[in-house]
């Protein structure tokens, strides 16, 4: 049983890190909450903030321009995150299994190539992909032309702009999640596969009956991290599309910057940030709850 002395020691040792977290995480969160209840221009001191209660939140869910733009940005953000996860997780499992199987030749090379994309800064990725996606001069459309597929509008069309950014995100992040999956696969004892093989299980059955169930924890971590990364998307939007066309790529991080800094509406932007935080907490809690439900079953 832990003694009071041990508790004090633990507190003492934790104090520096907890103190720093308090300063750099909790205080900004509390400050953002406080600002979300005020009308405040970001170019003025906090003392100039004027109390407006829940009026900023009310505006976010109104039918006025502010509310429409916010809800579109929120919807775009979650569509972007959902599509990113839907593509990233299966692909990282596929590549993880390939890379993990030493029998397949060239896995070291594949692993290097996959992870290399994660090392490239997103800003550079965004600039390069904006040129690749160019509707008239871009190599992607030229490559499609070799297969008889006509030029695609990519970033220039409201229907394809967001998914084009998702492809860019998947390309950059895939290596990282593949490495996570490989790490998860190494934790599965070979004896489990041997036992299943003795029972007659083969490739696809092994994947669905052994690999995926035993990768649940790793995949949960991947989903949560991919979700958080996707919700923080900013660089490709700021560099390439600036939220357009017609707001189809306007995601919340970019919109918050636009409202908070360019338009100087700090209180409103804080209300958006608080709403995003609450939405994110709700989604992550839902993911954990679903996972726990699966465990109980």
């Amino acid at each position, binding site marked *: 049983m832990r003694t*009071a002395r041990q508790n004090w020691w633990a*507190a003492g040792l934790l104090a520096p890190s907890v103190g720093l977290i308090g300063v750099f995480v909790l205080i900004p969160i509390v400050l953002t909450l406080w600002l979300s209840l005020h009308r405040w221009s970001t170019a003025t001191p906090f003392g100039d903030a004027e109390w407006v209660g829940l009026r900023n939140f009310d505006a976010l869910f109104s039918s006025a*321009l502010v509310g429409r733009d916010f809800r579109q940005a929120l919807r775009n953000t979650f569509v972007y995150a959902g599509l990113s996860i839907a593509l990233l997780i299966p692909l990282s499992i596929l590549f993880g299994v390939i890379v993990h199987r030493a029998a397949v030749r060239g896995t070291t090379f594949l692993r290097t190539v996959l992870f290399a994309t994660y090392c490239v800064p997103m800003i550079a990725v965004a600039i390069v992909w904006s040129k690749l996606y160019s509707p008239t001069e871009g190599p992607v459309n030229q490559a499609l032309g070799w297969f008889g597929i006509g030029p695609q509008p990519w970033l220039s069309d409201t229907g394809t702009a967001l998914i084009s950014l998702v492809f860019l995100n998947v390309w950059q992040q895939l290596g990282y999640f593949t490495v996570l999956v490989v790490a998860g696969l190494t934790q599965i004892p070979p004896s489990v596969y041997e036992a299943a093989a003795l029972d007659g299980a083969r490739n696809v059955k092994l994947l669905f009956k052994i690999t995926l169930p035993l990768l649940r924890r790793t995949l949960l971590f991947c989903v949560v991290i991919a979700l958080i990364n996707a919700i923080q998307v900013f660089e490709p939007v700021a560099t390439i599309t*600036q939220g357009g066309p017609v707001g189809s790529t306007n995601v919340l991080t970019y919109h918050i910057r636009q409202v908070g800094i360019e338009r100087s509406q700090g209180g409103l932007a804080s209300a958006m940030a608080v709403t995003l935080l609450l939405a994110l907490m709700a989604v992550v809690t839902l993911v954990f709850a679903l996972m726990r439900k699966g465990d109980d079953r």
Partner: protein
Amino acid sequence: MRPSSPRTGPEDDQWRGRGSVRRTSRYVALLLLAVCALVVAACGSSDDDKGASTASGGGSGDKVKISFLTHWAPETVRAFERVTAAYTADHPDVEVEIRAVPFADLLTTLRSQAGGDNGPTMASIYDLWLPELVRDGVLSRAPAANAAEVTKEWPANLAGAASVDGSTYGYPNEVDLYALNYNKALFRAAGIADPPRTWDELIADAKKLTKKDGDRITQQGFGLISSWAAGTVHPFTSLLYSNGGELIADGRAALDSQQAGETFDLVDQLANKEKVSSAQMSTADANTTGPYLENFVSGKTAMIIMANWWESALRAGMRGRFSDIATAPIPVGPSGDAPHSVSYSWLTVVNGKAGEAEQRAAWEFLAYLNSPESGEEGHSAMAALLQSMGILPSRTSDLEAYRGDLSREFLKAYVEELPNAKPFPIVLGGQEFTESLQRNLEALQAGQMSAGDAQERSQADAESVLETAAG
């Protein structure tokens, strides 16, 4: 830990434990105190530091260090560095640093840094941003001598655009307006002799100039820019002004007028009904380049309404083929009387949060930069920098000194239209107003909204923005 006394037994253990707890709590308290001290030190630095920075002239010996925030391209920044080097050679007590950011980051950088001690001392800003920066107390009011110079040496409308409530806040530097840019080679190939002067001619010519591969436009007759607020809204406003309409009249949104309705209809015709404009071919990126520029440069866009400043980009992209490009006044709408381009200006302002010495040095530097003494043959160094980019200078003496250059083929239409140009309304909430109109125009161009709906929503959004901004 060794006991502090040789006593042993249960009581001793208890005592020893309490003593350790006391010591531990003291350490914890000390640690917490240290963290608090760090926080207080971090939060309470500004005023003292500012005073120290001012007193020491920016911490670089006796020199006063000032900085200039701009969005100019690297080659212009290099030319500007030569100007600052010449100035600091004559003023060894001043050091001028140039900070360049992409256009899309200019306002963000200004807003996020202006309130701090390390913010830029001077910044080049779009006149639309002025009212809010003044409201937030970010800008320094021009000293009397500088204000008098601006009033005397610049045209009244531009001096007015650098003022709020009668106080001058900066030196106007560039003035921009819009004209129809067209590709003469494509016009010749289509058998069209002259540029369109009316909207009917614009549509007719655009149809002749458009080429399609099935439903896909391979050469667009007219380019409607998207994904860039000014690039979308300024050409629309030029067409609206040339149809006798206004964006804002008597402080209220005026997009519900008949003239505005006709202008929304024109956009609808070009983009959706006649399909002479391709949304995919005219998007812009954060650097105000992108497909809209590439397609005009490569001869896939026949006509576009653009500002004078893009001349340097066209020259760089087209090289020998630049001579194919010509400019003409904005085509006039059915309710308009004459071409009226929208105009806007840029001005250089001084950070009101900078130290007193820095502010004084900044205003002195700006007076030099914008005066004929800093340039050659009667023009200012600022005018030379602007002219290198194809931008019209604004000081009366600069316009006179550059009279010969300003009559060149490309700029001719712009310069001739200058007296008829009408400024973009400078109001609180102007940026948001522009972005809301941009969004509705893009939706119209993309066929997501009818012209009537776009007009109605634009008016409602504009009223909401202006009302909120007025507070």
